[in-house]
């Protein structure tokens, strides 16, 4: 099952009430907000109403809120080879 990943790029401020309501129905509250909806004609029709305001991708699965946040997290620049707990366990084992 595939999903639409919809991101609000332009706000609907000053546009007809209808566009704001469609965004609300899609669950888009703020600019750059991301929502996932299963691919269906009714969702496609809703997106068509606000096609000038959003960017759409087709994805295989819907990400959770946490996963979307993690996507935005920058690379820390290091990786953990071994944690202190593991090292201590190894030493005490010897």
């Amino acid at each position: 099952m595939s999903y639409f990943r919809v991101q609000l790029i332009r706000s609907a401020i000053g546009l007809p009430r209808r566009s704001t309501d469609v965004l609300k129905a899609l669950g888009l509250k703020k600019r750059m907000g991301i929502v996932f909806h299963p691919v269906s004609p009714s969702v496609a029709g809703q997106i068509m109403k606000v096609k000038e305001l959003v960017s759409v991708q087709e994805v295989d699965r819907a990400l959770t809120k946490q996963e979307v946040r993690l996507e935005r997290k920058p690379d820390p620049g290091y990786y953990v080879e071994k944690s202190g707990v593991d090292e201590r366990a190894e030493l005490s084992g010897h």
Partner: protein
Amino acid sequence: MFKPTSALFSGLLWKTPWRLSSPQKARQRKRLRAVDQVVDTLSAALSRQGKTTKAVERWYAEMPREEEMLPKDKYTLFDKKEKSYRKSIHKLPKWTRVSQRVNPPGF
């Protein structure tokens, strides 16, 4: 140096240029292509499921794509009050967030 211009002489005077600058035109093309891309994504996703929807079909039937449009239609729109029947598209309210691609029949 004080330069006497109509904007400085009178109180509130907004000067909207009569034509678009070339970066404005480039951004307009970019927005047109972005809308095309959204519709293409919707159509491709639906057709993969063997479905379609009226709004998408109608868009393809009625609206030209960015590359098919004439420069005249990209940057200007019909206006019956203008002498040339065309005015620049930035006179259209909310012009960066609405789709304006076709002319009335005969124009």
